[in-house]
């Protein structure tokens, strides 16, 4: 059964942002888990060639942010943009040669991350202005009072492998199950901001670092075990969090591909189904 929500009570707010340049400092290098220095692209700006459905790891990249990375110059306005933008929201380019092109929010990572088709993405540059039609915070699943929804456009929810079961639980299809030991940077932060980096996905590095997460794709729905993201992000046995992988390969240690949190609650409120097709690829 389709999930009943309060979507008819949610408003849309137009938020402005700007495609933010990649940032570096004069020292250049960071070091990876083994102490090896690296200097690699991935975070900020316009990152080409990676879209929902594509593999998340295996790139020579750090904190790979597919598509556009969007911020606002004013600190307060930026927090509103980061908190209120939801996965699935429509983004419109407002300036430059790409003006008028539209894309979709695929997640947050202290930037709002936006996917456009590759040919249009190739025409966007840093400094271009965009707007986000922000809608989704305040979403409630009417028949699942113990499950908190966030960062999720209600229009996208209808296309995800999520449904209400006859026994009252919320069935969710996931492409991967993530153990709590994989949770890296992001623990302790509010769950409407950025995402939760997953360790154990360092494709090309040592076996002792692996938690079997190297096959994640951008856009995959995943379940974080023993994680409570209802009011922040913490380890909590008996709670589950559903997320959408919005960022890719990391070399920086303690970081990795990360899900934006969309649903969280006690484990007994969910029925998790393994579904290799549980991915935003093709859904946006």
């Amino acid at each position: 059964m389709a999930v009943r929500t309060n979507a008819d009570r949610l408003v849309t707010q137009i938020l402005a942002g700007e495609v933010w340049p990649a940032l570096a400092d004069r020292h250049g290098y960071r070091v990876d888990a083994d102490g090896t220095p690296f200097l690699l692209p991935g975070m900020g700006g316009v990152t080409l060639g990676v879209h929902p459905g594509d593999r998340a790891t295996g790139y020579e990249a750090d904190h790979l942010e597919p598509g556009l990375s969007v911020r606002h110059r004013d600190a307060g306005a930026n927090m509103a943009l980061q908190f209120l933008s939801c996965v699935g929201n429509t983004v419109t380019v407002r300036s430059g040669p790409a003006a008028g092109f539209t894309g979709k929010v695929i997640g947050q990572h202290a930037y709002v991350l936006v996917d456009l088709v590759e040919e249009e993405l190739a025409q966007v540059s840093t400094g271009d202005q965009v707007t986000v039609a922000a809608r989704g915070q305040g979403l409630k699943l009417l028949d699942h009072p113990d499950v908190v929804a966030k960062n999720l456009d209600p229009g996208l929810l209808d296309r995800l492998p999520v449904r209400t079961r006859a026994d009252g639980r919320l069935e969710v299809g996931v492409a991967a199950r993530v153990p709590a030991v994989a949770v890296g940077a992001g623990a302790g932060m509010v769950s409407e901001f950025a995402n939760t980096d997953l360790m154990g996905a360092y494709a090309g590095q040592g076996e002792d670092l692996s938690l079997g997460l190297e096959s994640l794709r951008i856009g995959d729905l995943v379940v974080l075990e023993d994680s409570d993201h209802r009011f922040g992000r913490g380890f909590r046995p008996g709670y589950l969090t559903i997320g959408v992988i919005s960022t890719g390969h990391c070399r920086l240690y303690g970081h990795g591909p990360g899900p934006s949190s969309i649903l969280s609650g006690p484990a007994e409120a969910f029925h998790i189904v393994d579904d290799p097709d549980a991915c935003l690829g093709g859904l946006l």
Partner: protein
Amino acid sequence: MTTVAVNLSGVVETPTMPGSPYLIDADGRPYVPVGDSGVVLGVHVGDGVFDVDGDHVAPGVTLAHADQAARHALTAFACFGNRAVVRGGAAAGAEGFVLGKRGEEGRVIVVFPDDVLARLVPGDPIMVRGSGQGASIAGVVLMNADPGALSLLPLTIGDGSVSAVVRAVLPSSYAGNGIGRPAQMWDIDLQLTPATDPGLRLGDLVAVDDLDVRHNAGYRRGYRTIGLIVHGGSPLPGHGPGLMPILCAPAENLPVTIAVDALPMLRPDHLNSRP
């Protein structure tokens, strides 16, 4: 190699709050964080990490610096056991010792005798003799500790290994805020609640398995990190008692004995009786 000591300037932190005082706990209840920084009275090394209803409460004072880059350096170079001297205000001349540090913007936790604490106020200047980063022990990685202060802790330095008496050994799933951050500048909050607390006290040694903190903190099978508990619990999800890493190595180089009922592993008089 010879390690180098540096004199660092810190200022007793002034607690700050945003326009709305509330933070939200794991169950969605608002709370007002108390005792998060500055001069905190009535909390001592040896106290339980959930003895008071505060948030990240540390025993003593926290130091900061007005310049963020200098604050990061202060945090990076101040180490457990370093001597601190009050350089102004009513407590000028009094001495204390660094217990540990906290992350994010960075702050250094300094323990003083109660009569000194009673005279300290936010803004008082304090000098820390920063010494310890770069020091080494064969077979393990040492950080955040003055080698001269290691004798205050229940450690036995062997040939290529260090044996430790710890209050508890936790799996890495308890490591919260601090993962993915540089452990020379950032403690690791243990995601414990009063219900799951194994009886930690401020100043205890605790081991975390499958945690490697040499180049940022992260999951690595077979590694072990031992740290000092430097601040108390927090209602905030993903936060909790703070473990400042001091030793990291493959687990076989860091054998531990668990002493659940031991006396406090570090006592203020240990610190204050140092030469």
